């Protein structure tokens, strides 16, 4: 309850909301800047330790409030699915397939890069999932948060929080403007990210395809895929992707060691 009574946080939040929404969506070239991005950045600036506006405790409270406040977003995601259920079921196979694509997608590009950059077991924590709150908890339980795996997942969690929405809107803009993908496929791609990133992608897609009926279906696809990933993700991450990523790391690490040994000779 102490967390809830931190009125300083709530007052700052409503001020941030008002200012962010007043600025509104701005397009700079292919870059789409959104209120959720301003809100994150303003929050980050206000909480910078140098400014001494918020104490360590305030920030801990804010990070405890965040996942609970997220419930309202999740409820809306769920509400968007029901009316479209019948329509979405016609693409059932696709939605399930892209969900598996999501689980492999987190590591397909990132694991090789992480290993080339010389990260060690951090790779496993970083690449086995999108690294949101629930996935941080999985690693914390299995390896401990101060382990190498723990550093990896915390790193990706922070990167996702700070840069997730920005990075997502940048590459979504590029991918959408290429015109290779149908908006439905983009919608399913967008849905596999965390909530804030999904929202960012969806806003970019919306700015390219303003047709409201098309967007309604696009949003329903995104919501369903997002819901599936969120609902099943925890278990898939725990039982499939974490062991898989760990095994892949060990497998490739052998070559890295051999390469080093060969270079030494």
């Amino acid at each position, binding site marked *: 309850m102490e*967390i*809830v009574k931190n009125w300083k946080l709530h007052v*700052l939040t*409503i001020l*941030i*909301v008002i200012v962010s929404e*007043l600025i509104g969506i701005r397009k700079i070239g292919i870059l789409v800047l*959104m209120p*959720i991005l301003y*809100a*994150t950045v*303003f*929050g*980050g600036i206000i909480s910078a*330790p140098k400014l001494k506006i918020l104490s*360590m405790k305030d*920030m*801990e409270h*804010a*990070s405890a409030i965040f996942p609970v406040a997220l*419930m*309202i977003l*999740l*409820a*809306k*995601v*769920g*509400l968007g*699915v*029901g009316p479209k*259920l019948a329509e979405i079921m016609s693409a059932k*196979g*696709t939605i399930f397939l892209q*969900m*598996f694509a*999501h689980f492999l*997608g987190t*590591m*397909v*590009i*990132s694991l090789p890069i*992480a290993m080339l*950059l010389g990260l060690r077991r951090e*790779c496993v924590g970083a690449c086995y999932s999108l690294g949101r709150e629930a996935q941080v*908890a999985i690693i914390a339980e299995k390896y401990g948060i101060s382990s190498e795996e723990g550093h*990896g997942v915390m*790193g*990706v969690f*922070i*990167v996702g929080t700070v*840069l997730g*929405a920005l*990075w*997502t809107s940048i590459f979504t803009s590029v991918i959408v403007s290429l015109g290779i993908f149908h908006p*439905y*496929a983009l919608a399913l*791609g967008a*849905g596999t*990210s965390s*909530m804030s990133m999904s929202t960012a992608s969806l806003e970019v897609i919306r700015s390219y395809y303003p047709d409201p009926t098309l967007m309604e279906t696009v949003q329903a696809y995104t919501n369903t895929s997002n819901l599936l990933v969120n609902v099943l993700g925890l278990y898939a991450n725990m039982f499939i992707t974490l062991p898989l990523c760990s095994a892949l790391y060990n497998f490739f690490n052998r070559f890295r060691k051999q390469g080093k040994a060969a270079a030494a000779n």
Partner: protein
Amino acid sequence: MEQKKNIATIEWTKIKSGAIIIFLAAVFTAIGNTIQTYVKSDLETVSLLKSLEGSLVIFGVAMIGYIISQMPYLKKLSPVFWVGIVGVVMSTPIFPGSDYICNASNVIQFAALGTPTLAYAGLALGKDLPMLKKMSWRIIIVGCAVILGTFLLAAIVSQITLTMEGVI
């Protein structure tokens, strides 16, 4: 370290503080939503009262899911799971009152829901910045690769299977 949850009890304090936090997030969303509809030229303006009604309906749905997620044994599954499921069930056409629930909550822009939540996340960021610095630029590249890979692979697979299924 995380504490082991006692799964046979109801978490009353968590429900109480959860209710306050979700309520505040709902009210902030309503304010942000109304501002957004005034700022964005292509949106029909929505009065604050109408926004409040919509966000309180969403609050209700979220609370039902959240309370379920704190019940004995049910809390083994995350609140994410329960809140999402409750939302789906309450908006299917066969659910009594789903018309009202959908119409009322539709006035809330999806983007407006993220702003208050992300503001809280932002306010927690200051303390994580030194750690991110310590992880250096490599983790930033890896993190971006994680996000991009997820989007790309899902979009590619979807494009192929949707084409094969004849949906697009």
